[in-house]
């Protein structure tokens, strides 16, 4: 008897210790407050935005070019949201990579799983992973996707498609169209109708009761499911937009319109909003492009915050997916002078530019004879050397910012260390109801897991439900499975059991059973010949 009493006490002690360590572990992870009343999640990604870019933009906004006065109280909408740091590394076959690309970064943030370079929505073993957007859709919420690049570009694609090659934009476009996202705004109409498989995805959208708009006028009074394609590939930088392509909406306008539509759903919504071209400007080492689109992003953040504060059940996350360019206020020229240099040294030269390095290309005439005037009127550089003029003249179409960006950076003492991405931890900006924050240094995968936990969703279970390996599933039921590749642009999986034939066309949201068309609530996916189908398709063969 005594032994049993002692052992019981020891057992209880052990159990207590386990529980407490467990709960410690839990609370360490739950450094944020789990708030089950969160209905809507807004994830905003400023692609390739190193933190010095934000500081530079804030100084740019504070500086009055006419008077030279600086208003140090000028704030950005992001400022109050700063709350933590995010690690961005990627992983392939258990080997980590220090500097990530947008594709594995987007996959990590949308699925909670780190993966290989160039992979979208698939693990490093190339099997599809359910994204938080798809999980939200299954839970009956509305979903949205916005980007200023083509929406088939890596970051938005990582939330809405599954393919181990980010360059295959036409495959990504097909999956996105059939994935039934409620609101999609951005560029990329070229991938919808000018395709190798000759399918016209715009008419697919129209036949499925989507509004299809191509100019910003289409945004007013908009209700219901909508795809807005405002450019054949990418949209313009914000600074260039008002001059060169005024029919495009700004990121903030797209954000407001999307939130208007999505908030009609009582169950809530998930939306990913990307300011895509900060990254492109950083690659080109063009500080004007960075400032232009950081400001555009900040205005969109402001619109999202306004919504969240009014709504009271919305979480807003703003991050970048990785650093880019090594942008710094100060370069090798300021090594000896940095402790005396005023803000104007870095900002005044930048203030003279009216268009970004990409935007000025449209102002050059066909034989590039007006370089000096254009650079002076639009890019704020009056003292071009002959070598610089020659370099501009020889620049390939579409790469102008790579030539002129470094020129203005030199004059403004803005430093760059690379034209590629960088591996620093990036800043986490967050807002939860009750003005709460997510703090600490987290992993980019935590963003997906935190969102899923708030909605009581287990992303692994959703993956198992939506992406079963078709061959093993159907063969286990005694069916024969063959791949019909007679039309290489539209491969089908054909499953036969007895008198039943099930044809599964790749990347679509319908299948054909014995000649009748069945629509499904997600998509089937073909990755290099391996088909993945949701449970509702598997159930069609008994």
């Amino acid at each position, binding site marked *: 008897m005594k032994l049993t009493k002692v052992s019981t006490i020891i057992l209880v002690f052990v159990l207590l210790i386990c529980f407490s360590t467990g709960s410690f572990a839990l609370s360490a992870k739950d450094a944020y407050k789990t708030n089950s009343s969160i209905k809507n999640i807004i994830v905003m990604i400023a692609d390739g935005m190193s933190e010095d870019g934000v500081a530079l933009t804030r100084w740019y906004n504070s500086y009055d070019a006419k008077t030279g006065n600086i208003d140090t109280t000028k704030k950005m909408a992001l400022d109050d949201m700063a709350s933590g740091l995010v690690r961005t590394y990627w992983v392939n076959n258990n080997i980590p990579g220090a500097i990530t690309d947008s594709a594995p970064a987007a996959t990590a943030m949308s699925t909670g799983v780190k993966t290989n370079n160039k992979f979208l929505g698939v693990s490093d073993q190339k099997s599809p992973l359910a994204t938080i957007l798809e999980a939200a859709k299954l839970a009956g919420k509305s979903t949205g996707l916005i980007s200023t690049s083509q929406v088939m570009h890596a970051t938005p694609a990582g939330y809405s498609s599954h393919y181990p090659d980010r360059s295959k934009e036409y495959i990504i476009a097909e999956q996105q169209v059939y994935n039934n996202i409620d609101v999609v705004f951005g560029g990329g109409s070229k991938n919808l109708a*000018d395709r190798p498989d000759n399918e*016209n995805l*715009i008419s697919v959208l*129209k036949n499925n009761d989507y509004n299809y708009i191509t100019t910003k006028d289409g945004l007013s009074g908009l209700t219901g499911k909508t795809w807005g*394609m405002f450019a054949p590939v990418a949209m313009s930088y914000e600074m260039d937009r008002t001059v060169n392509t005024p029919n495009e909406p700004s990121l903030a306008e797209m954000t407001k319109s999307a939130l208007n539509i999505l908030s009609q759903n009582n169950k809530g919504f998930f939306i990913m909003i990307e300011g895509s071209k900060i990254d492109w400007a950083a690659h080109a080492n063009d500080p004007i492009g960075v400032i232009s689109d950081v400001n555009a992003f900040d205005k969109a953040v402001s619109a999202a915050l306004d919504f969240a504060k009014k709504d009271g059940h919305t979480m807003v996350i703003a991050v970048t997916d990785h650093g880019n360019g090594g942008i710094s206020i100060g370069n090798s020229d300021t090594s000896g002078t940095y402790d005396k240099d005023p803000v104007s040294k870095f900002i005044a030269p930048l203030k003279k530019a009216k268009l970004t390095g990409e935007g000025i290309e449209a102002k050059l005439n066909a034989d590039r004879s007006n370089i000096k005037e254009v650079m002076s009127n639009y890019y704020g550089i009056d003292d071009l050397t002959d070598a610089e003029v020659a370099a501009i003249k020889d620049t390939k179409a579409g790469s102008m910012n790579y030539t002129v960006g470094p020129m203005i950076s030199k004059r403004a003492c803005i430093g760059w260390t690379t034209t590629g991405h960088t591996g620093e931890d990036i800043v986490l900006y967050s807002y939860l109801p009750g003005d709460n924050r997510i703090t600490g240094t987290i992993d980019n995968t935590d963003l997906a897991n935190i969102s899923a936990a708030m909605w009581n969703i287990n992303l692994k279970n959703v993956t198992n439900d939506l992406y079963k390996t078709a061959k093993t599933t159907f063969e286990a039921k005694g069916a024969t499975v063959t791949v019909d590749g007679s039309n290489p642009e539209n491969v089908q999986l054909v499953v036969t059991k007895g008198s039943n034939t099930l044809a599964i066309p790749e990347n679509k949201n319908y299948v054909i059973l014995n000649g009748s*068309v*069945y629509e499904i609530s997600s998509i089937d996916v073909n990755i290099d010949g391996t088909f993945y189908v949701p449970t509702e398709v598997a*159930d*069609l063969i008994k």
Partner: protein
Amino acid sequence: MKTSKKIAALLSAAVLSLGLMSSFAFAASPIRIDIDGKTITSDTAPVVQNGTALVPVKVVSENLGAEVTWNQVKKQVTVQTAGYRVIFTINSNTYTVNGASKTLATPARIINGKTMIPLKAIAESIGAAVDYNSSSNTVTIKYFTGLTGSLKVSGSTTVQPIMQAAADKLIAQNKGLSITVAGGGSGAGIKDTINGANNVGMSSRSLTPDETSKLNPYVVADDGIAIIVNPNNPVKNLTKDQAAKIFLGEIKNWKDVGGNNAPILVQTRETGSGTLTTLEEMLLNKAKVVSTATPYTSSALLKQAVAKNENAIGFDSVGYVDSSVKALTLNGIVCNPQNIKNGAYPMSRQLYVFTKGRPAGISAKLIDYLRATTCQNEIVSKEGYVPFR
């Protein structure tokens, strides 16, 4: 038993059986469905519930040119015509037409494993005139009859024969209807529709993203572009690469592709031809046909040129190929309907009609007529094209 009770029992039995008999009789008298003057036979008989006729979905899709989609999870059936998208939910009293909600007295049901939808509701939603004659127990539906108005159609000369034949049939059964069909080429048809110069346009090439943002296209047939040579030419097959090189002028002599020592005389179409644009897109990767090729203003003239010249090579829509010329196999694949429909033949394409915005009224009816099984099997096949379903 007492006599009165006996009588009462007998009486009630009689009343009951009468009632049963009458309901049996009611259910037993078959309901007839007439669509545009033709009595419809289907392997599943229509069912009447609460005075509403329910029919199997196939009746609607096959006879009215609608596309039907099932959703197992949501238990919904979607019926789509050119102008309307109607969604029924099984056992639900609400349904939607183009997104707007409506109510039903009798919902759609699954009876004996078949999905049955309320005939009156679906017919009226897609713009048919429905009438019920109780004495003959006949439901009369007018979908492609009783139409009035006038339509202007223009565009691709490849689609034109299909459109003309369909228009002729429609006009024959609709006295108050006039449809004028003009050619002009795919480019002209697209511009006309965007500018409002026609009601329906025709195109033998797919629309660009910019064009699709303004127009709503519908496939009416599949087509293949055949490479044609003179019947006396010994060459029977070309790889896609060889064919491309020939039309680009890089291969100039038949002996280089297994034929006689003779010059390859390329015959082509004048700029503006949709067939030429499609050939350049599908075979030459948007490069242009060699500049020395002889151009013709119609496919008939091109075909004639190939028929008359032993060393000529040309191209044409499969619908125009006849015994005066020989169609080559491409990559070993024969240019026939099967291979065109499943896309195996390397130069298959789709033929479209389109309207500005969503089609409505008689434009929508014309498009539905073109896509209905009757037109597909009778007109499209007869004109030498491939039904797209």
